[in-house]
């Protein structure tokens, strides 16, 4: 078997050394009744690379590849072009097959990369400190709520209705068990989010208010007032971002007064991958909150010869030191995705990120202008970055999305898919446009949409 280096001769010699007659002598602790005597029934035997590859390719062939069709899905996962060199770097065995850098003398590669990553994320978010990654945006969102309860010693969180519904679900699921109280609702269908309504729900028991920016409908609003409102009541403002490319065009949450900024980093360097692994980003504006942060942190120090080096630090927050008192139970995080993000971000740089953002916005504007020409389609948003909500003059946007798929267009995410029960959202379709979208793609969407709406009428 191609992954098993021991030869039968080796096995014989080694059994002799350990004084066992056969391998099962080493499994004596397993209760007799539970011991399996042959390979597990019903599973196939070992197979060659070629056979496995054929099988996996057959499965892969049953999926519609985003890049093969006009493609407009977003809602927390965005399709951007990832430069070829990103994959070259993350396939380096020294990165790919390393563990968490517990032995810093031979893990400076991972550690320096994490230090650079933390700096990039902090700058992007307008924060002082970012951690070395969490699982994904949704769990980062929950960790932010949990941290806010630790910092404020309050246990009520107010969630914006326009927070990604999966994120609210995760927060509410966790809160069920931790005993935190969560207030939320589905978004209202209006051009601007109701920030006053949100502010008015903050009270003296509120640990934090959580708002998404751009929000689930693609809307963009100034959060400065909300930050004031939260701070006035002693609450923290948690801002969630699911499209980091947007922050190349719009103000950072930190600039507007967010205390904790979390988000999904997938859009930069990671790729779609059917939803995972993704990359949880987590940053705080005020360095004083560092010791309440979840997850790993990499810090600068010196070695015994006085050379600069990097180590994991402030580990007393973490489970392996603090056990039941840790700030989070997280151990394995998203290291390799952080590397992919950091490499892509390094390739972009300030200039590239801004240009990328501008190109996304430019194409989104073109898409909007074209789509509103389709009879029965109207735009909800006043403002948007690369994703926006259109209202369809027909019963169910969800059916439209399925019809579009049948016609070879992946036309967006229907709000009905995200909020199945909520009647008022069923006509809304979320459309994302990135630099990978061509004008032909936009035309295809508009044409097919028109045909479908016409047929339905």
């Amino acid at each position: 078997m191609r992954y098993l280096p021991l030869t039968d001769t080796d096995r014989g010699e080694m059994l002799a050394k350990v004084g066992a007659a056969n391998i099962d002598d080493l499994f004596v602790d397993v209760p007799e009744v539970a011991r399996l005597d042959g390979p597990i029934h019903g599973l196939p035997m070992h197979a060659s690379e070629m056979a496995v590859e054929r099988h996996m390719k057959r499965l892969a062939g049953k999926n519609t590849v985003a890049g093969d069709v006009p493609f407009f899905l977003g809602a927390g996962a965005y399709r951007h072009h990832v430069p070829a060199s990103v994959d070259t770097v993350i396939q380096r065995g020294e990165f790919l097959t390393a563990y968490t850098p517990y032995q810093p003398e031979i893990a400076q590669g991972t550690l320096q990369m994490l230090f650079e990553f933390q700096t990039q994320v902090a700058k992007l978010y307008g924060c002082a400190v970012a951690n070395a990654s969490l699982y994904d945006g949704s769990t980062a969102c929950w960790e932010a709520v949990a941290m806010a309860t630790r910092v404020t010693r309050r246990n009520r969180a107010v969630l914006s209705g326009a927070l990604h519904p999966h994120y609210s679900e995760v927060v509410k699921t966790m809160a069920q068990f931790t005993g935190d109280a969560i207030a939320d609702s589905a978004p209202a269908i209006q051009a601007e989010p109701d920030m006053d309504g949100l502010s008015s729900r903050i009270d003296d028991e509120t640990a934090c208010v959580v708002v998404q920016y751009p929000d689930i409908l693609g809307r963009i609003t100034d959060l400065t007032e909300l930050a004031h409102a939260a701070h006035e009541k002693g609450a923290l403002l948690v801002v969630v971002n699911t499209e980091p490319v947007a922050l190349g065009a719009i103000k950072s949450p930190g600039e507007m007064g967010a205390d904790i900024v979390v988000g999904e980093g997938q859009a930069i360097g990671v790729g779609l991958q059917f939803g995972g692994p993704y990359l949880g980003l987590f940053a705080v504006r005020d360095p004083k909150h560092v010791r309440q942060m979840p997850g790993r942190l990499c810090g600068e120090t010196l070695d015994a010869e006085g050379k600069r080096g990097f180590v994991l630090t402030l580990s007393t927050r973490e489970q392996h030191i603090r056990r039941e008192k840790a700030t989070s139970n997280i151990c394995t995080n998203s290291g390799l995705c952080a590397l992919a993000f950091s490499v892509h971000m390094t390739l972009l740089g300030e200039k590239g990120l801004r240009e990328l953002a501008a190109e996304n916005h430019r194409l989104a504007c073109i898409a909007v202008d074209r789509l509103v020409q389709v009879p029965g389609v109207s735009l909800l948003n006043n403002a948007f970055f690369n994703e926006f909500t259109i209202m369809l003059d027909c019963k169910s946007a969800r059916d439209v999305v399925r019809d579009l798929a049948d016609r070879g267009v992946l036309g967006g995410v229907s709000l009905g898919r995200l909020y199945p029960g909520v009647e008022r959202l069923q006509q809304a379709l979320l459309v994302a446009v990135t630099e990978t979208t061509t004008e032909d793609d936009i035309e295809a969407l508009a044409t097919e949409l028109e045909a479908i709406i016409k047929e339905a009428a």
Partner: protein
Amino acid sequence: MNAPNKSGWKPAMEVADATGESVTTTGNRALMLEEPLIFEIGHAETTGVDLPEIDPAAPSRLGGLARDEAIGLVGLTEPETVRHYTRLSRQNYGIDLGFFPLGSCTMKHNPRLNEKMARLPGFADVHPLQPVSTIQGALEVMNELAHWLLDLTGMHSVAMSPKAGAHGELCGILCIRAALEARGDAREVVLVPESAHGTNPATAAFANYRVENIPATPQGRVDLEALKARLGPDVAAVMITNPNTCGLFEPDLREISDAVHAAGGFVYCDGANFNAIVGKVRPGDLGVDAMHINLHKTFSTPHGGGGPGSGPVVLSEALAPFMPLPYTARTKDGVVHLIEEEQADDFAREHFGGELSSFGRMTAFHGQMGMFTRALTYMLSHGADGLKQVAEDAVLNANYILRSLEDLLHAPYADSGPCMHEALFGDKDFGNGLSTLDLAKGLIDEGFHPMTVYFPLVVHGAMLVEPTETESKASIDQFITAFRSLAERALAGDESLKQAPYFAPRRRLDETAAARKPKLAWTPPEE
């Protein structure tokens, strides 16, 4: 090729005085290359991508929130980028470089076919919210993987979405809490052995349980009688690692399970060490109610310098109804369904004959697809016969190491019989104040990654050596020789070890200083 040095060897190269001055003008030493931070070499106007210049006259519908200030990022061109990260990578140790016996982490070879399959556009370039008709292949992967996991563990159901082991623990414990709450039985305590991984108590605490210790026997196992004595109506669950973190099988697990169940509690099994027993024994046959499986350990998906992982949780019939959404299931007609909030109840009623009382959702989307494709590729490659061989070779390698070192080093449980996938030693009798850390750093100079140190906490100066099955005998023999030489030096009190490593990219790093005044992001040098 090189004869082992006798104990008492002294390094030829003295520690330089801590001035940071270097023996070359560049600080490089041939192929051991220094590398500045991107912020020290990049520029705001440099980029490694070619995008259209920004047209200032272009329409903007950003609601007046256009960024006006600089972000503060820097860019590098592609040549600089590739070189930067290549040079950094060369300061790292990985499985691809050599033996990486990091106990509890199962650093086995990461097959390259896994990487290739995960990159097929049909898996890599698919959006999680595409219409279900366009993602049948992805759902089949999840289902097939689920099928393997259930057959290998003998359990009833599996929750696929947890993102890593600790997330899986949380999933399992929440299932238990939900099940208990469903029967109106609010319990308060989770019992966890002192030897458990930190994530166990952290998880239990997170789910608002009080953590109490399970007593251990001198043989490093759960003390069955003491445990039984503690069980009662306040105990929600016991969390047991099997094989445990001392690398030993818990022979009484079946009886423990029975006792816990009799007391109305549940058994959570930490499956991080499943590699030792895959294909040899099924946790389901030992009465386990929930167990996470680290796909990034047993099933060979790469650790990537800290993640991503994937931690599906197999569940007993009692816990299955509470599992988090979404999950996938294939119905008799062969169609694979993605079951989200919306369809859960209907689906459960129709196909499982009951309502689902899912405790909720643990993550956006559907889990670590990129790891599923890799793990499935690995399982198909090994097959049922290969996976059994995996466990056998992993256990044989560990026992070989145990028996090759026990004459020299304190091996606390060596007398209690064979170990499983890990050999455990302690630093008893090291001379001159030397400890486990010094031996570990000596291993670095010898070209190995050290074993896990100071874990589990129950052994003084613990050294937990997990060779895995993908190591050759020659490699292990070389490790044993080097380890013996270092152990002899440590026992003899060779102080030169206190300054090891000598040859790594960095000498020992000052972790205290790092924590005292944390510098966690680059800041421009003061003028």
